[in-house]
């Protein structure tokens, strides 16, 4: 079942790299945002999401802090990782044991030829009400769906997932560029 596949994904995939598309749909299924980019992570807690479209944005988890750099705005937002990671999608992807600590996991009905689970955040100060994860026949993560409090949902589709690539640690280290506005602790 999907929850077993998540466990084997966590145990077997110590690092990963994939392309992703991010489509946000409102309650009526109308698209309100389309973005795409690449994602890399090393467990636990190190991740790098690079958005290329519709604008350039970089999200880095360095194991202690969560950095978000908007290149157009030349603005960096930084948060402590446990506050940000706790029940965030990045925790589900690149976390270790905190997945059980941060979420209630439940297998749900399969669709689109994939096996699905539902992860409900235990803490309520996250912006998501529930997160669905889908695994393909090779136990690889294919889709994540994030449902927010307005009934909108973000569909993250992963492509060309590479398991356990060698990823240099500098990918998960971020230093705000000269002159950038830095917000947060």
């Amino acid at each position, binding site marked *: 079942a999907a929850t077993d596949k998540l466990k084997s994904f966590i145990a077997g995939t110590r690092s990963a790299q994939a392309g992703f598309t991010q489509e946000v749909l409102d309650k009526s299924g109308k698209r309100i*945002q389309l973005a795409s980019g690449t994602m890399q992570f090393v467990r636990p807690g190190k991740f790098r999401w690079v958005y290329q479209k519709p604008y350039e944005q970089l999200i880095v988890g360095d194991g202690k802090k969560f950095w978000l750099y*908007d290149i157009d*705005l030349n*603005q960096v*937002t930084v948060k402590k990782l446990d506050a940000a990671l706790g029940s965030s999608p990045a925790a589900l992807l690149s976390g270790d044991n905190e997945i059980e600590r941060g979420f209630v996991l439940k297998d749900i009905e399969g669709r689109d030829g994939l096996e699905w689970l539902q992860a409900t955040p235990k803490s309520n100060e996250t*912006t998501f009400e529930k997160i669905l994860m889908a695994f393909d026949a090779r136990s690889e993560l294919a889709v994540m769906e*994030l449902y927010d*409090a*307005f009934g909108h949902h973000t569909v993250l589709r992963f492509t060309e997932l590479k398991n356990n690539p060698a990823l240099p640690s500098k990918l998960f280290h971020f230093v705000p560029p000269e002159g950038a506005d830095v917000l947060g602790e």
Partner: protein
Amino acid sequence: CATAPVAVHRQAQADAPFTFNGRVAVKQGEQRDSAGMRWVHRSDEDEILLLAPLGQTVARIHRGAGEATLDASGKHHAAQDVEGLMQQVLGWQLPLSDLRYWVTAVPAPDGEFDIERDANGQVKVLRQQGWEISYSRYAAMAADALPLRLKLQRDGVQVLLLIDEWEAQ
């Protein structure tokens, strides 16, 4: 997968409907706020969604039928004027009643204004209601092109509006 057709030119009739996706960043002294932003404008109704990085909606602002509402962090707020409501709940505001014109590089109908244009007729700076709005990027070269990057300034408040995409109506 195909995206919604994109608009590049402003529609001729005044106060035409529009929809755009973009980002907003507000600077007030030490305070900084930024969010993704989707604005669906109709003559009698506005809906503005403020989005977090992964696309989740963190606030929904609605203006219509003489009332303004704002939903955020599980709470519903209502008031007469949308600007005051934003200031009260979010701690920052956008001059929405005029911005709905300024965002298409057109002055609001009431109140004097002055405009500086560049060689091809595009607005470079617009001053109205105490705000100075500078337009630094457009979707095309034409005089009626829609802007993609605006900076609004008024006594210590700076609002940067980056529009990634205007949806064709």
